């Protein structure tokens, strides 16, 4: 056989265009698309401090300290960033935002960090968790740095998609856009814009 043996047609069908989810600046709310994820959820606990971690998970004090430190590093690396304190506080509440040393942006403080189920021995990241304060349907929800909604605070444990336990993409502060694409736009005036694209 000289052709692909099998193609899963259900996967090739395109659903109706997804409605754009609400995005507070850099923070994308991703719960809607993740709900459709076929991978089984992981059970996690969310702890507010090293002490909380020690008291309520199977981790030792040393492990909890490592987890906290990692969550802190992840928060600096991947946490939501805002151009002003006011914008940040709009999303995360009064006095909940800090400016990291010698940086030009504001980040919310994380309210806790996620400890995965120790029985699954895959490696994961101790990701920070934030509490979203802005009004709307996500008010008071806990979420990860990329906007995945975890749930309302106060539960003993949460079920989250496995991806929430992976490191999040590094977030930066973009200073300019539009540095690519100029040659195509210069050439596209030719042919009355009837070109199908820039592939070949």
């Amino acid at each position: 056989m000289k052709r692909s043996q099998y193609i899963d047609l259900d996967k090739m069908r395109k659903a109706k265009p997804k409605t754009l989810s609400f995005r507070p600046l850099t923070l994308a709310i991703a719960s809607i698309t993740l709900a459709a994820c076929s991978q089984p959820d992981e059970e996690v606990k969310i702890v507010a401090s090293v002490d909380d971690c020690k008291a309520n998970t199977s981790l030792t004090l040393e492990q909890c300290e490592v987890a906290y430190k990692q969550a802190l590093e992840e928060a600096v690396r991947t946490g939501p960033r805002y151009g002003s304190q006011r914008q940040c506080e709009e999303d995360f509440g009064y006095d909940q935002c800090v400016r990291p040393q010698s940086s030009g942006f504001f980040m919310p403080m994380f309210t806790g960090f996620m400890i995965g189920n120790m029985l699954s021995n895959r490696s994961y990241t101790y990701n920070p968790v934030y509490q979203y304060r802005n009004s709307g349907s996500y008010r008071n929800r806990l979420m990860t740095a990329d906007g995945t909604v975890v749930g309302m605070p106060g539960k003993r444990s949460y079920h989250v998609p496995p991806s929430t336990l992976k490191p999040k993409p590094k977030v930066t502060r973009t200073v300019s856009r539009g540095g690519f694409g100029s040659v195509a736009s210069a050439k596209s005036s030719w042919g009355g814009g009837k070109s199908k694209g820039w592939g070949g």
Partner: protein
Amino acid sequence: MLRIPIAERPQWQQKAEEFGFEFHTMYGEIYWDETAYYQFTLEQIEKGIEEPTEDIHQMCLAVVEKVVNDEALMRRFCLPEAQWDFIRQSWRNGDPSLYSRLDFAYSGNGDAKLYENNADTPTSVYETGFWQWLWLQDNVDTGKLPAHTDQFNCLQEKLVNRFKEIKYLTPDRILHFSCCKDTPEDRGTVQYLEDCANEAGINTDFVYIDDIGRDEHGNFSDMDDHVINSMFKLYPWEFMMQETFSESLGKNNIRWLEPPWKSILSNKALLPMLWKMFPNHPNLLPAFFEDELHLASGVDSMVKKPIFSREGSNISFIGKNADIEASSGPYGEEGFIYQATHMLPKFGDSYTLIGSWLVDNQAAGISIREDRNPITQDMSRFLPHVIV
């Protein structure tokens, strides 16, 4: 190799919509055409197309090895000097490639002749890998074609497997896909490749080329300010390398698909280089640089092609066939190369071009384009094929 008329599948347009194939008809003209198909024998496919495709790919890699080590050649290929290290480094690192498409003139008899190598931004991958596959499946299911009918098309399977290898090479990176705004075909192509990457278990995201941002350290970012560290771009390297953000290329830690060294292969200067390094190879046409046309004595008709061009733009005939109308377009400022004329085979009223796909270094299937003009262009019709 035969062209055989066949009834269209009833309501195939509806099916196209269901599967998100939106560009089957463009500007009121048919692009996907299933009123006929091409039929090949297994030998025509394997000896006529598959073997030459893999051979030529190896020859092309030999050209890259030669060019990256020779500044005069880098200059001849019109690659901007500021990007030489970027290109060389990607080659020396062995940065993986995803796919390419070689275009051939082939009539079913004799040797397939290479027209060019779409090594950087090949399109029509969805129509090939999925849509013509589905066309065969439907026609076999409804008994219109015999059950043993086959097709040279394992493109989708190979793409998914290649993405699995790429995932292994760059674990935990989110692969950003990108193309220009307002290009429905390119957007469709990129979506398809993104689907293949997802199937391979790669986490993906999308950002338009025009929207890519840059931070103060020279990292590129998407619209959510996420740093890009792995990117598939359906946008020509020769464009990117002359645009503002090119000054950051090679200085930020990004794994590119296609890798920068592909800029040597998507370049028409490849054709005279191949002819120099592998003279008289049965699948090559004599080809020459503009300042070496004295080597072309005895060639009475040539095609003039811009060093950089896409989709058959700015091509003209000189010599014996100079009466054939040239194609227009926005390319050619970097100069031209000359390739001996070898007309496309004609089936009825149509000139027929074969695109032969490679995933990494393996032949992966073919696509067929038809046009009433001897120069096929971006609006040339796409027809399915079978092996019997």
